[in-house]
């Protein structure tokens, strides 16, 4: 065993891996935000609340409908996504032409209301959600014990992220979407129902948040405020990656997870702040973010 900066290599490797796992959550959440911002120009501050709703939905499905974790992975994003679409149809669609600030304020207000309602009914200390039996246990990698569940999270997150990137950047559907963002009138002239496409996109972004929520339920505390702490970090990730850049969101999500993981070894007290320090530096040097196109 050798040492790097006074830290045993074993510890370092395990922290890198843990960082990657946390990065999977950042990536999933920032991906949803990037999709919504890139396609709708809405800064979706309800994202944290929607992530929380995904986790609660997993709890409800298990508790009241007897549906397992695997069902929740499909059902929760669909239900929460539908909820998102209702919000988009009834409220958000009126804001596209206005300044970003209006969308931000509306979604922030909605997030507070949703959290308040959940807190009122379920309290703040959270609900228990057991891990599915098939994912219990773990592998001894020599330098660390890797729980099967965490390995599953990394793989699932990578698949979903890359799949989303592929659909938006490399398929015809994605091309329509990107075209609709650039010039909705022209795309509509080709006979494409742009408003419906936008609604579905928002629903998809929200569904991604709910999916991350379901994946978080077995390992993190399922409580109404679980999203509000995370969302700020995720926004920083999106800003660093470049607002609206899909690949940027994915790469910085994983990257910052790793950097945060390392901070937890070298200077744990700063582990909540390190991402914001990086954000400040990136904004000074590249205001559009690492992967953003300069406006």
């Amino acid at each position, binding site marked *: 065993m050798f040492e790097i900066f006074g830290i*045993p290599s*074993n*510890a370092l490797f*395990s*922290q890198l891996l*843990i*960082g990657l*796992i*946390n990065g999977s959550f950042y990536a999933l959440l920032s991906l949803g935000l990037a999709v919504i911002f890139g396609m709708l120009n809405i800064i979706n501050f309800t994202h944290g609340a929607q992530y929380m709703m995904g986790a609660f939905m997993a709890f409800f499905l298990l508790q009241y409908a007897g549906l397992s974790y695997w069902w929740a992975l499909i059902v929760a994003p669909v239900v929460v996504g539908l909820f998102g679409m209702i919000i988009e149809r009834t409220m958000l669609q009126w804001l596209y032409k206005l300044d970003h600030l209006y969308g931000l304020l509306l979604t922030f207000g909605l997030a507070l209301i949703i959290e*308040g309602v959940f*807190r009122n009914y379920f*309290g*703040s*200390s*959270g*609900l*228990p*959600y*057991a*891990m599915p039996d098939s994912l219990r246990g*773990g592998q001894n990698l020599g330098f*660390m*014990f890797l*729980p099967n*569940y*965490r390995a599953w999270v990394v793989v699932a997150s990578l698949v979903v992220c890359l799949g989303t990137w592929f659909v938006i950047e490399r398929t015809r559907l994605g091309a329509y979407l990107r075209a609709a963002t650039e010039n909705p009138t022209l795309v509509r002239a080709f006979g494409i129902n742009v408003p419906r496409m936008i609604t579905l996109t928002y629903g998809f972004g929200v569904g991604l948040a709910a999916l991350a929520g379901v994946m978080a339920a*077995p*390992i*993190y*505390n*399922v*409580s109404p*405020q*679980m999203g509000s*702490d*995370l969302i700020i970090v995720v926004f920083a990730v999106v800003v660093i990656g470049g607002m609206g850049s899909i690949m940027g969101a994915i790469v910085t999500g994983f990257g910052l997870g790793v950097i945060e*993981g390392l901070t*937890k*070894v070298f200077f*744990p*007290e700063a*582990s*909540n*702040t390190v991402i914001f320090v990086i954000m400040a530096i990136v904004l000074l040097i590249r205001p559009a973010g690492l992967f953003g196109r300069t406006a």
Partner: protein
Amino acid sequence: MKHLISMAALAAALACGSAQAQQLNVKIGVMSDMSSLYADIGGPGSVAAAKLAVADFTKDHPNVKVELVSADHQNKPDVGSGIVNKWFDSENVDMVIDVPNSGVALATSQVASQKNKLFIVSGAAASDLTGPKCNANTIHWTYDTWMLANGTGKAMVKTGGDTWFFLTADYAFGHALERDTSEVVEKNGGKVLGKVRHPLNTNDFSSFLLQAQTSKAKVIGLANAGGDTINSIKAASEFGIVSGGQKLAGLLVFSSDVAALGLQTAQGLSLTETWYWDANDVNRAWTKRWQGERPGKFPTMIHAGVYAGILHYLKARVALGGNPDGKTVAAKMKEIPTDDQLFGKGTIRADGRKIHDAYLFEVKKPSESKYPGDFYHLKATIPAAEAFRPLKEGNCPLVGS
């Protein structure tokens, strides 16, 4: 002459009578975390407990009129002291109670001292409140970090857990709990191998737990609370910390945390509390009344402390009459012995520390739990005289002066 004396006696009797029935107006402020990680251990439940205390007291003392106000300190010391300043200066609040989060409680205690009002701590844990930072306007009711360390810490060392690693919440409370527990561990022949300080409200503890794992310590002490403790224990069970032979010591675990973890994950955990809803018939009856406002929830020791603290405060106010300042009321509260249905008979010491028994519990297995809220086995009762830090050791300036 005889006539005159009887007249005087009559007048005196009348004066006495009017003092007895004198109308007493009291205003109490319940300040708590209403909307974040500590809202279930204190929060709206503390307000419900305060209402019960007021109802019980005014039933026997119809001449006492109590007004209750409440506020959310958002776990920010500046917000908390702002609220308390406003309450004391312009809203005629006589006493502030609860205040989970030691950072906010220490700030509140300062304000109470400056304005010569009264502060009864139920929610906060830092033993500094009756130690170096004590003052004549603060009474610490329910529990503190020394008592938690002495209960859980000592029990763990005695059963072989003699090397420790701490996961500590990086603020006043966590530091106090870590310090008090380290002392107990070392005093009983154990050793502290290391510690890591994490920010309040951390989501993922796996990285910290891996550091704890590499330390090879027999016990991982969780010097944190609420959501942080829940996330630590969940991650520990996932990373096989306990099955790997290390033990977890939840230094501050509430029944609401056990509910959130589920017995499957929490079983076997040792913890110390001063009050448990299911301990006896009196507590169960009180819980039933409390649930009238908080259906489906179970009260914590903090809620019980708010109830008992208000009752004792009102007793002192009636004994004093009029509108005395905070120091006078605190002195009176220390002078008369405490006696209430939830904590039984007890006393308040010169440093402001309320003394009562503490209990060492173990979380039941899922198969042993018969009904909702059936969480604990009682392992040991720590008598009041041993449960809290000896008066001389606290370095409170009020002692021995």
